[in-house]
């Protein structure tokens, strides 16, 4: 089953919606503005009735897997249940209807929420202050690196390199490069943890920071984190924490205590704000005292119970987003933290670790386990053992989709061949974990008896495996002018032919 595009469903006979009339006797745009400034023909928006719209989007919704219906064991992504109360809180008119340029006196409740959320996050990760401005994790990473760069600049130190482990998320090196740093890779040892020897050889007076996540992307806690921190700090560099894996240890330990100087958090992972099909999220950054002067402006300050925005921060890296960040996501995260409390957050992390180790145990004989346990909140398996049958991690992923499970993260981290990265989170029941392990067992069995069957999966979804190679070829043909089919957008078939023949000027006015 597939759904036509809104553009394909559009009918010229559909009347526009009834909207307010001007009620005032003033001239309209075409009476006042010069012809050259006006649009020459109406935008090609579709014309659908409200019932048509609701059906269209309801049918599209039914084509999705989502955390509300499916288990999403996506390693590194922390797909946990999104409490519905969060949504209700963010939609309260007292939050949703606030204009960002209202006077501070009229938004004391919102500022108080931001202040309390900042304090809570400081406590959870062990830092001095937090900026709530970054809109996403990658945005937070980059913000942290800008602060680290500003810190070294303020000390007149020319540090140009950022060290990134080979198991790191792709955003780490990208954020470092966009912040003006040269990226130097640090190797993992055989046990899946950062190689101290390699780290030592890469550290130098040029090193600005080491970017690390702990537990690392293999789900393993860096046991020697205190030594690592000491080595990094001894060279005058700083330690940056990638908060993708924060769900592993809330209330158990803290990045600040491990020696990290800057810590980013993903509210959409650890603090249950929904992923929205790929955003909006929020990526606050916490910093130790040395980095506080460089925080983005404005910060929220509280004195005698009165809250204000502070724009006068001379050493600040400036502003990284308009207004004050994704405020609606801050409301959701705050609501979650309130409901959970310190005890609940701590329990959540312990349950996440328990779930991961339990599931790891259940599938350890079906897939390869390249590293020794215990793991923290996630583990990385490998489908390398099915290589002889011609079955790859991708096949396992697609077969799981056919069994109502979203797939784990595959082919990441890059250091494990045929990686299958599983993060069950604390919000899944034992029954779900058992069912998932059962599905893995069945699929691996099938891989041994009838591997061809796996290559045909998924067969029960709206579409089968899509030919991305052919799609890429067609995009290339379009971009190089060999084809008129735009691939990256819809165009009326007649319009494509017309444009191919000749560009005809349109004179219709709207």
């Amino acid at each position, binding site marked *: 089953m597939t759904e036509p595009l809104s553009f394909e469903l559009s009918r010229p006979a559909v009347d526009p919606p009834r909207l307010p009339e001007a009620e005032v006797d003033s001239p309209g745009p075409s009476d006042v503005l010069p012809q050259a400034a006006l649009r020459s023909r109406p935008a090609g928006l579709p014309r659908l009735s409200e019932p048509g719209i609701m059906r269209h989007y309801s049918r599209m919704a039914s084509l999705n897997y989502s955390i509300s219906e499916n288990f999403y064991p996506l390693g590194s992504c922390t797909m946990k249940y999104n409490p519905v109360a969060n949504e209700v809180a963010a939609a309260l008119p007292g939050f949703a209807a606030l204009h960002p340029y209202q006077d501070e006196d009229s938004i004391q409740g*919102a500022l108080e929420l931001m202040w309390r959320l900042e304090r809570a996050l400081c406590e959870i990760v062990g830092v001095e202050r937090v900026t709530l401005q970054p809109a996403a994790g990658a945005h937070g990473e980059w913000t942290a690196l800008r602060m680290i760069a500003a810190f070294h600049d303020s000390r007149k130190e020319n540090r140009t390199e950022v060290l990134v482990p080979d198991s790191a998320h792709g955003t780490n090196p990208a954020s470092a490069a966009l912040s003006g740093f040269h990226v130097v890779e640090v190797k993992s040892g055989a046990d899946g943890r950062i190689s101290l020897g390699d780290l030592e050889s890469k550290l130098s007076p040029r090193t600005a920071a080491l970017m690390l996540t702990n537990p690392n992307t293999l789900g393993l806690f860096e046991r020697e984190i205190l030594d690592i921190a000491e080595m990094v700090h001894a060279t005058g560099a700083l330690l940056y924490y990638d908060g993708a894996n924060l769900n592993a240890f809330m209330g158990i330990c803290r990045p600040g205590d491990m020696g990290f100087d800057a810590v980013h958090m993903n509210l959409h992972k650890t603090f249950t704000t929904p992923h929205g099909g790929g955003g909006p999220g929020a990526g606050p950054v916490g910093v130790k005292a040395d980095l506080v002067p460089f925080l983005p402006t404005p910060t929220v300050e509280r004195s005698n119970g009165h809250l204000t925005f502070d724009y006068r921060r001379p050493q600040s890296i400036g502003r990284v987003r308009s207004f004050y960040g994704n405020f609606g996501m801050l409301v959701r995260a705050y609501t979650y933290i309130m409901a959970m409390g310190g005890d609940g957050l701590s329990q959540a992390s312990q349950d996440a670790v328990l779930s991961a180790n339990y599931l790891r145990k259940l599938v350890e004989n079906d897939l390869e386990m390249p590293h020794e346990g215990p793991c923290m909140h996630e583990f990385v398996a490998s489908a390398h053992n099915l290589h002889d049958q011609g079955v790859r991690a991708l096949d396992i992923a697609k077969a799981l989709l056919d069994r109502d499970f979203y797939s784990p993260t595959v082919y990441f981290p890059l250091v494990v061949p045929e990686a299958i990265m599983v993060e069950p989170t604390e919000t899944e029941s034992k029954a779900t974990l058992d069912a998932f392990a059962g599905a893995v067992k069945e699929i691996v069995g099938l891989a041994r008896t009838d591997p061809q069957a796996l290559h045909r999966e998924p067969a029960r979804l709206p579409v089968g495996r899509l030919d991305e190679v052919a799609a890429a070829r067609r995009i290339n043909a379009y971009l190089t002018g060999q084809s008129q089919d735009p691939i990256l957008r819809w165009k009326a078939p007649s319009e494509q032919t017309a444009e191919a023949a000749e560009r005809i000027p349109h004179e219709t006015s709207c």
Partner: protein
Amino acid sequence: MLETIGVRSMEDLLVDIPQSLRLESLQLPAGLSEFETMAQVSALAARNRVYPDRLTFRGGGVYRRFIPAAVAAVTSKPEFYTAYTPYQAEASQGTLQAIFEFQTLIAELTALDVANASLYDGATAVAEAAMMAYVHTGRNEVLVAGYVHPEYVQVLKAFGEGRGIKVRKGVDPGKKTAAVIFQQPDFLGLLVDARALTQAAHDAGALAIACVDPISLAILAPPGEYGADIAVGEGQQLGLQPSLGGPHVGFIACHKELVRKLPGRLVGTAHDAQGRRGFVLALAAREQHIRREKATSNICTNHSLCALAASVYLTYMGPYGLRQVADVSFRRAHHLAERVARLPGWELAFPERQFLNEFPVRVPKAPAVLRKLARKGILGGLDVGRWFRELRGVLTFTCTEVNDARAIDQLLEVLAG
């Protein structure tokens, strides 16, 4: 579960964490029931002042607009809001198709070839566009022409510093200029000569980046018509609540020659073995998870759900509904402008310039005026002197379809009183 794992307690699973790092407990209040949580959160919400839509005349990048009920009905479907980034295409066709429709809607509005899946907001969209121009031209200066939203420029500067991109204000592009960035209508609501600015950019071998108001494009010539290379903007007006400034949605569209430098996600069509059409993430080789430090942007998600809201909004409105909204806003703002200009001591700040539905007016004792309006429950104009020294005493007023004629009368009664 512990027994299956083969350990005796949770402690056995946490052995890798050094004892010296272990925490006794978090110094946070204990957990609450949903009832208590909501009572506390609602109490915070109640400490904020909510101005009614019809009595809000403040814009500056975030506007009150009529939001059709269908928007929230769609975006609150858990299949949309609790889905992840569509890595597994076969199980994410709803999200992927929604993004594909959004890309087409933005491409149609801006009259450019290709739009991406969305960005965080208008400010970061401007910064990402500047980055594209920097990479495309190999030049390291971007020129900000006229009154571009001051916060967008601040974000642009912060982004630029990491890459050695210099941000200069002016209208005279030179040999080092990678792009000329202008806003149409500008931050004050005034129309700029987009055609001339685009031409000036091209004459200097630079790209033209137009930061546009999406609703204005129902009236104004779109960037593709006057030859701009990249169009960006903020999509909050397309069905999103003000929400103290976010989450909203940025958009970016460009000519096909620049597509490989577009940041963020792109969705394209593809087919399965049975020939059925589906949607996939396309041109991923541009992105950070493949190119790592060589990627030209670190963006790995977008604002999908906000983009979905925008798509529902634009589909609900259709070409003529959107035109109606823009037209009503235009007429009301001109009506208001004409009347406030007659108030004693008030004058339009740029009487020779055209505007759509937001305009600057020079006002005696601006702060006192705003306080007086607030006392009467009206959120008055935006004091733009806060950002621009030469605009001290200037307020920008905005009208949209939510500010009915009676609301405009009410505003004027208070101002005259």
